């Protein structure tokens, strides 16, 4: 059964990547959007651009992993093809994990391109590579699970109320420490905050223990959001 689940998860992800994700418009949009956002901010506030790189990466993962899940979950459910997966010998958590794996793979691919550009411009410096890989992976998992929760609950409008403030409160443009205490509390409840912090640590070449709490928070967000999405999907498809 576990073998069926793992195989199902893998092929669901591969199918989604092929059928939906890796189409030229999605790739170019996934890469362009975060650059445009950072550029807009940089023009308004010229200064140390290098400081924006962790936020740029976090934004790229956020949009790369979660923006297409509407198609892979809600759209498939509406046209009936999600039922094919529900009929297959793949248990629900594995099915959803396959969907998330597709989103993560796409998000990380786009992020790799953005990372290469950023490194070419600013230089690799003292990057802690293993930590960077771990941080990117956990951030992709957390954002992908967040996207799944949004889609399974069909709460896109509500989600945008969360996603946009998250971009401003997540420490991308304004460091957490310079925010009023009340907003800092809000920021601590957002996964983006932890993603930005741990990416910053990795790019600054710090050791893993200094950012272990951030990594733990991302892992906890992933687990909780994934559990929520599986439960909701089970209820909605029964």
């Amino acid at each position, binding site marked *: *059964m576990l*073998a*069926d689940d793992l*195989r*199902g998860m893998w*092929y*669901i992800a591969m*199918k989604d990547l*092929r*059928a*939906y994700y890796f189409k030229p418009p999605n790739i170019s949009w996934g890469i362009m959007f975060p650059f445009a956002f950072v550029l807009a901010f940089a023009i308004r506030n010229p200064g140390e651009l290098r400081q924006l790189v962790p936020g740029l990466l976090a934004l790229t993962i956020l949009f790369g992993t979660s923006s297409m899940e509407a198609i892979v979950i809600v759209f498939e459910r509406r*046209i*009936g*093809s999600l*039922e*094919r*997966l*529900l*009929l*297959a*010998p*793949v*248990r629900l958590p594995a099915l959803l994990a396959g969907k998330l794996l597709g989103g993560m793979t796409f998000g990380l691919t786009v992020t790799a391109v953005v990372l290469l550009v950023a490194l070419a411009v600013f230089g690799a410096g003292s990057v802690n590579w293993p930590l960077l890989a771990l941080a990117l992976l956990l951030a992709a998992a957390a954002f992908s699970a967040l996207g799944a929760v949004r889609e399974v609950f069909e709460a896109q409008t509500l989600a945008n109320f969360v996603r946009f403030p998250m971009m401003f409160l997540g420490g991308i443009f304004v460091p957490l420490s310079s925010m009023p205490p009340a907003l800092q509390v809000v920021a601590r409840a957002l996964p983006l905050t932890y993603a930005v912090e741990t990416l910053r640590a990795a790019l600054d070449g710090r050791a893993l223990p200094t950012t272990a709490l951030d990594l733990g928070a991302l892992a906890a967000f992933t687990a909780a959001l994934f559990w929520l999405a599986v439960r909701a999907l089970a209820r909605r*498809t*029964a």
Partner: protein
Amino acid sequence: MMSDVIQVAELTKHYPAGRGAAPVRAVDGIEFAVREGEVFGFLGPNGAGKTTTIRMLTGLTRPTAGRARVLGFDLATDVTRIKKRIGVAPETSNLYDELSACDNLVFAMQLYGVPRRERKTRAEELLARFRLGEKRDTSFAKLSRGMRRALTVAAALAHRPPLLFLDEPTTGLDVMSARSLRGMIADLRDEGVTVFLTTHYLEEAERLCDRIAIIVNGRIVALDTVDGLKARVQKRAVVEAVLADDSGGVETVRFESDDISVAVQAVLAQAAADSRRVLSVNTLQPTLEDVFVHLTGLGAEAMLAEKGGKGGAHAGG
């Protein structure tokens, strides 16, 4: 030895009341068994509970009460094992628009664990069988309705399941596509695949099914072979014969009896007495439509209401 591949006892599905809707007893304590190798028809008007029953037996919907065993596995505890061994073609052709005909079949095989080396050959074999060989690389979105339906059935067969569920396979198809699909279903039975078929087309059920359960308002009102169902309606045998005399005069005569052999003998006796020749003898049987009307108290038009219209209703010869 024939064994039961599906056994159902008191299977029930209730939907609770919600948002102004009254509670629904979609399926209400049904019992039946499907034998290995037969085409089992589940016949009923729209909303009778056909699709809900399929959804329960294929693990998409949890029953409110009752038990079922499919291919020897308990539905309540072994649903994944059941899923692995059955093929399902749902009511809507729901393959992936973005993938080609061939890739859709390959993906179906990947999900069900068909070994990599077999996938291509099996896909080609299915495409040829369903006359889709030339459409191998055409995306699902660009296929005609009949081809989409055929490919959906093909995908359900990709992993060679011994038991196939077909939910309204010919609804909405043109006469030729429906006929061709029926031919394929008949072939499957010849190969030993057990087919559980829902339909609201009486003629289709009569043509394809070894046994038929008639379901109305979530309850099975009759379950028998086609001939058995007809026998319930027709208590007396009716024989119709065409007799000709030497001058070329032709007459149709009809005899009724409790015993068909008595009626046939009466035809022969009549011909001998008048020195006439027998040109033809027919036994008159009620149609499945007569049976349906008799057993359900509904008009046959109840079967055609709402869904699909008459598109594939007639088997077309």
